[in-house]
Each structure stands twice: as structure tokens, then as C-alpha cells.
């Protein structure tokens, strides 16, 4: 699957493409025939991880469905930056209704297609972490338990970015947001709150649940392709750094996503019917500090004196993920 390595090539499967790879080994993004489902001129910030993630996912889904795809979008950055009336950046049938009802709208589209006998057309629902995990969560859980034929994609940038970086249930502990100020004994977002949407999705025992990041394109595309091979409710959770909300350099978006995976803070795996089937191993293990230091939302941990106590609590979270999901290579780190 995703981590098959072609060791002979300069860049193996890590880069987007390579002149030495056969075309079927290259990513969708390497081809000039890719759909560019989210095209130029959108108003996402410089270095937007969500814009990148959405194009990655939808272009792969477009290829997997031969272009027969409809998307329902929740309110959020992705909707706002792509469709300031009268412009649209979408190059597929795309529909926006409310903040909290994207899974239900997607369900409705799927039901209508079924009635019309259009089994060739597939449906994607998508939104940010706020629309998915907080506001639209009831609709999402309903979509899962009914087994509606929708792939729902959550682009997780760990806060409400569109409205000014307010905390969501995906915001990590200690992170500064507009509503979790870096003050007091426990600066930033508190420990012990929030939830894991992928694990909750797995609890519904739906056919397919996966996580991915914008740092590993081949893995992400393979997961979209796998999801489109299946029918019923499917869930894909994509980690998309936000330079504006996280206070990171625009150029570092992919690097930060890579660090989230390599430190163990964001476990990358896939599950079918509630059971984990594959886990992306850590290639070059790193302490969480490498990840935290690149973002101003954690800058208060590196003041004078630094909050080593808080940093080690975050490290403990990463270590727990590494144990729980078995993120290290066999025989330990290389």
C-alpha cells in the first residue's frame, strides 16, 4: 500500500513525481491532466494547508470516479475563500448550505442520486474541524450510523480560523487561540479536553476511516482511492497546517505537517469496519519541541523560563500515540 518504497529512484515515493517512475507510480498531482478541482485565484492565505489538502483529496477522488463527483461543503475557510460571490474556484459540482449540515446535505445528494439511478456519480462531504467535529457532529454521526454512501473529509487545522482563530474541539492542549489566551498556570488551551474524530468515526464501525497529512501525498491519494473503492459511510481526516492561525511561516506548511507525523503528535493510520489495518511508521523520530518551536501559538512555552513541564506533557501525548498506534518502525527508529 502507501508505504511501498521504490528504493532505486532518487526520491522513491516521497516526492510528487519523478521522471524515472512509470506514470502509474506517480501521484495524481504529478500529472498535467489533474483536475485542479480547486483552481487558481482563490483567496486562501499564503501557504494555506487546507487549500492544498482540498485539491489533493478532490483531484484524487475525481480521478477515482472519472470526474463524476459532487461535493457538499460546510461553512468555513474552505467555503469562504473559494466562493466569494460571484467568483468560484471549484471545478466540480459544489454545494454550500449551512455550517452544521454538510453531512446531511451530502446524505441528501446521495439519496437523490440513488432515486435517479445514477450509481456512477459519487458524493463527497467536506468541512473544517469546527464544522465537522463541533457544529456538524450530530449530522455526521447520523450519516455514519445510517451508512449513507458518502465520503466525508475533515480538513483539520485545529481551530475556527475563518472567524479569527477561536478554539475548537480539535485544538491541541497549550495552543494559543483567541479564546485560549496564553496566561495563567495553564496557558493556552487546557489539557484533558477535545476529542478524536477519527476514533469516534471508527466506533461507528463504518467501512473506512483514515487519517492523512498534506506532507505525504502518495499516502493521502492512496487513501482517497481506497475510500472511493468502497461504498457506505467513509471518513477521511486530513491534517492541514494553518500559517495564519498557528503563527507559522507560509513556506513551512508541509514541513509542519511532516513534523506532526514524525513526532507522533498526529498518528497516520487507516481502519476498516472499526479495526486499524495500516499505520504509517515514523521515518525519522523527533522530539515534539521541533514541531512546537515552528509555531507562534506555542511560543509562550519557550519564554524565559521555558515551560518544560508543559512541553513534557505534550511529549507524553506523543509518546502515548507512538505506543498506542505502534508508530515506530520494527526494530526501533532507524
Amino acid at each position: 500500500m502507501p508505504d511501498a518504497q521504490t528504493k532505486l529512484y532518487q526520491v522513491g515515493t516521497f516526492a510528487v513525481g519523478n521522471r524515472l517512475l512509470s506514470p502509474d507510480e506517480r501521484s495524481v498531482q504529478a500529472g498535467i491532466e489533474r483536475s485542479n478541482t480547486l483552481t487558481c485565484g482563490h483567496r486562501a492565505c499564503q501557504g494555506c494547508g487546507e487549500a492544498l489538502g482540498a485539491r489533493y483529496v478532490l483531484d484524487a477522488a475525481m480521478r477515482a470516479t472519472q470526474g463524476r463527483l459532487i461535493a457538499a461543503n460546510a461553512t468555513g475557510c474552505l467555503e469562504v475563500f473559494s466562493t466569494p460571490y460571484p467568483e468560484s474556484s471549484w471545478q466540480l459540482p459544489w454545494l454550500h448550505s449551512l455550517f452544521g449540515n454538510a453531512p446531511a446535505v451530502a446524505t441528501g445528494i446521495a439519496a437523490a442520486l440513488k432515486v435517479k439511478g445514477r450509481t456512477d456519480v459519487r458524493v463527497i462531504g467536506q468541512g473544517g474541524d469546527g464544522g465537522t467535529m463541533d457544529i456538524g457532529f450530530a449530522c455526521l454521526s447520523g450519516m455514519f450510523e445510517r451508512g449513507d454512501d458518502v465520503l466525508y473529509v475533515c480538513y483539520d487545522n485545529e481551530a475556527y480560523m475563518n472567524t479569527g482563530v477561536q478554539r475548537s474541539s480539535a485544538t491541541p492542549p497549550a495552543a494559543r487561540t483567541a479564546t485560549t489566551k496564553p496566561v495563567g498556570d495553564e496557558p493556552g488551551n487546557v489539557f484533558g479536553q477535545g476529542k478524536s474524530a477519527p476514533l469516534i468515526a471508527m466506533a461507528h464501525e463504518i467501512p473506512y476511516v483514515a487519517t492523512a497529512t498534506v506532507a505525504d501525498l502518495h499516502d493521502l491519494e492512496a487513501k482517497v482511492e481506497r475510500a472511493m473503492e468502497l461504498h457506505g459511510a467513509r471518513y477521511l481526516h486530513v491534517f492541514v497546517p494553518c500559517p495564519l492561525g498557528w503563527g507559522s511561516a507560509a513556506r513551512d506548511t508541509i514541513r509542519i505537517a511532516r513534523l506532526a507525523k514524525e513526532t507522533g503528535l498526529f498518528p497516520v493510520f487507516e481502519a476498516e469496519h472499526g479495526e486499524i489495518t495500516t499505520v504509517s511508521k515514523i521515518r525519522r523520530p523527533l522530539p515534539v519541541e521541533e514541531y512546537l518551536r515552528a509555531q507562534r501559538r506555542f511560543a509562550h512555552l519557550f519564554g524565559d523560563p521555558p515551560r518544560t513541564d508543559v512541553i513534557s506533557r505534550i511529549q507524553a501525548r506523543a509518546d502515548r500515540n507512538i505506543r498506542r498506534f505502534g508508530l515506530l518502525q520494527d526494530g526501533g527508529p532507524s
Partner: protein
Amino acid sequence: MDKPFAITLDVGTSLANKTGSWRTERPVYVDRLPPCNHACPAGENIQQWLYDAEEGGAGYERAWRRIMEDNPFPAVMGRVCYHPCETSCNRAQLDNAVGINSVERFLGDEAIREGWRIDVAAPSSGKRVLVVGAGPSGLSAAYRLARLGHDVTVRDAGPTPGGMMRFGIPTYRLTRDVLDAEIQRILDLGVTLHLNSKVTSILDAMQEGHFDAAFVAVGAHLGKRAYIPAGDAAKILDAISVLRSMEGEERPKLGRRVVVYGGGNTAMDVARTAKRLGAEEAVVVYRRTRDRMPARDLEVEEAEEEGVLIKWLSTIKQADGGRIVLERMELDETGFPQPTGELEELEVDSLVLALGQDTDLSLLDGVPEIEVDDGVVKVGPSMMTGYPGIFAGGDMVPAERTVTVAIGHGKKAARCIDAWLRGVAYEPAPKHELADFELLNTWYYADAPRSVQPQLELARRQSTFEEVTGGLEESTALYEARRCLSCGNCFSCDNCYGVCPDNAVIKLGKPGEPYAIDYDYCKGCGICAAECPCGAIAMVPETI
């Protein structure tokens, strides 16, 4: 216009919104100088020929032809070059340096096996150039001058061409069939070669043969002597004569116990040769320590593996029939060896001096404006001596004395001679900025440790003159070529095209121009530059 209630604008695509106006920095594709190319004394475009070789199949011939643009001896290079390219290779900081030298050898051998030829590239210029010395430098110059359309005559004092490649490098490092094949390819370009034809006066030779210019590269074939009090019966030889006589009818008789005095590569070559000739003991005596020894690490290691002993911090005080006296030395604060008075005796059958070589410059006697300093001839940046039209290179000019440096001299001199004959000055192309390791994003390179060249078994290395290091198999050579990181130059990995959140990289797919930035939409986020594996994109501030 007729619009629905409360609607004032036409619907349309976001392509109307030129987000390029947000940009404060723009990404620009650049070519940087890879460290291998930078380090190559022969000026090979190593990265480019590795790039060609990476394709395998027809790519090998293209790669070989690319080497031949700069160096007519790929198979020789692949055996004797000390590969400074590998020493400077950025991949060494990731796992191991790319085995450039072994790939070059593969390509060189492939060319000989396949019989690939080179043609003269230019029409005849009508100019005649005399090359004195058929060593690496002279042949390199002759090759290039012939390809530029000049009428070239090479004269050499020896009975066979090759210079130090033949008379200085033992066969276990360079087989003679390979050397002969690569020299023959140069002669096939129409170069005239006169052997056993020592030039005693360069000016006379030029006048007699109506030559318009000359390149003098007579090498350094005179072994240096040191004063050692010696009795009549002492058998003292010089290293370069020993190595030269290996090419003759009769092999030198060195005896069972051989002592070599000196610490350079030649000392190692002689000691290893002595072992192969049947010496039970081959001892190298060197007055300083290993870290100060001029011999290459690889040569010392291989010599020690073959049983050559090295006496560090020792000088030879006296030599008598069958016996030498050594004195132990100590390094002073400046690192210079000082005698200690502690003596030791060794039984020897022959003592070989490997103390460096001098050059025979008598052919330049009487030529005005030629400057000789410390036994070598001074040349300008164009390799021209003080006398217009006479150029010099190789071991007889001040530089490191290696085959590769000599070949580089020949190439450079040929370019400058060509320019001089046409009445212009040779202008080298400006150098690009160096592609440092820090510019790379090494995440994208697969872990691929270096392949190892097969080595001849130790027992055979001690008794025969077979080649010690073997060549790579085709698949291994391909693997090795593909380990190249392509530092500083795009290799079409599609990363920039894939990672742009604004879809603002255009894939052109043209050779030499794989991509372009769409500045109408590029917001200048810099992800393409950050995620470029090889550092081929620079972010340049916009002028506002």
C-alpha cells in the same frame, strides 16, 4: 443587464482574481553549482552525466559522451582518479557519498566494450599544434585540439604513449588494455604520434615542423635523491625507475626484503609492487606520522591490507650492503620531525627512494621569458608560459600532481590555445553559486546506502598484478547513479508542481525547462522552494 433580485454581479471563475498581486517574494528556478562538479580537477559535468546515466539503456552512451566533452579517459579515471568529487559529495552528509568514480568506470568500460567512437567536431582550422609528451595532460590537450579542427602532432621520448599512466601506475590499479583503448581512440581522431622522439629544443622543433603553437607536458620523471651515506654494496634504486622497469622486458630484482623511503602514493605503489614481485617484507619508512603522510588513505589502507609494513617517524641514516640504519624521529611543536638519536638496524636487499620527482626542463633552455621556480615552469591563467604560443601543463607546472589534474590542464590549455590561434582570449563561463547541503530538503530522498565495488581476494593481490578493484554490474551502476541528489539543479521530481496551494506552477515538460511559475496567481508563499529536494528554487524579493 437582467439579473435576479439583489444580484448585481455576473457569476464567474476565480481566475479573474489575480492573487499574484499579494506577493512580496517570487520563486525563481535557479541552477546552482553542484559540489562534485566544483571539485573535479578535469572540470567534468558530473551531475549531468549521472543524470543521463540514471535513465539506463541509451542514457549510458549519452552520459559517456558528456564525460568525453571534458575528459577523454573515463575508463582510466574510473580506476585511478582520487575522486575529489566524492569527497565533496553532499550525499556523504546523508548516508554515503555517491560512488561517482565507480559509475564513471562502468561507463568507460561500457564504451570500450561497445566500441563507441568520437568524431572531430569542427572543420579543419589549418593550424598546426605540437604537443610534447604523450601523458595524460598532453593527450588530453591533443584530443581537444584535434576535435577543434587543429592539426596535432604529439612527440614523446618513450617507446609507448601514456606517460605516468603507463610508467608510474602499476597494472593492478590500471590495466593496460584499458589505457591502450582510450589512447587509441584519441589517435583515431587523426592525431599524429611520434614515439622515441625526444624534443631537445622546443623552439627548434616548432620551427622545423612549422607549428603555430606548442603544448609542453613532459611530466616529472626524474626520481629525487637524498643524501644517504652508503657503502659500495648498498643497492639503492629510485621508485620511478622501478615502476618504469615494470613495463620493460625484465622485471626489477628487488630481493626478499625491500625498504621504501618516502610517504607518497609512489612509495605505496612501489611497496605493493615489491610484494607482488615476491618480497617477503616490504617496509615503508616515513619520517612523519600518518596524518601528515601525502599518500591517499585508500592507497595506505590497501597497502597495509596486502601486508606492507609502515615505519612511522623514522629516517634512514645509513645504508650498507644488506643493512640500513634507521633513526627514530619526534615531531616538534611546528610539526617538523627532529632526530632523537635512537637507532635501529634493518636487514634489506634493496632500498627504494620514493622522495618525489623532478622534471627535465632542458627542452626549454634558451627560450626567452620562461620562468622556472622550484623546478617547475610558471604559467599564466591561460596555461601559457612567458613565451607567446608555448603553453605548459601537467606535472611540470605548479599544481597537485595527479592524472586528473593533468587532464584538466590539457583541457584548459587546449581551449586557450584554440582561442589564442584565433586571436581571441578564452573567457570561462561565470560560475554559479555553490549548492550547499543546507539548500537541500533531504526528506524526499529514499534511504539508499552506497553499493560496494568487488575487491580481488587478498592472496591474489599479494602475488599477482591483477586489478585489485573490480567494476560494477550494470544494475549496481544504475542504482549508484540514481543515488545522486542532483544538488542545485532541477531533476523533474514534480514537487513544486504538486505542492503549490495556488496551482500556480505550470508543468511545461520541456527539456531544460520542466516548469514555470504562473506569476499571475503565485502568492509567494515559498512552499515550492522549501519543498524542492535539490535547492533549485530561490525566493527573490519583489521590487515594489
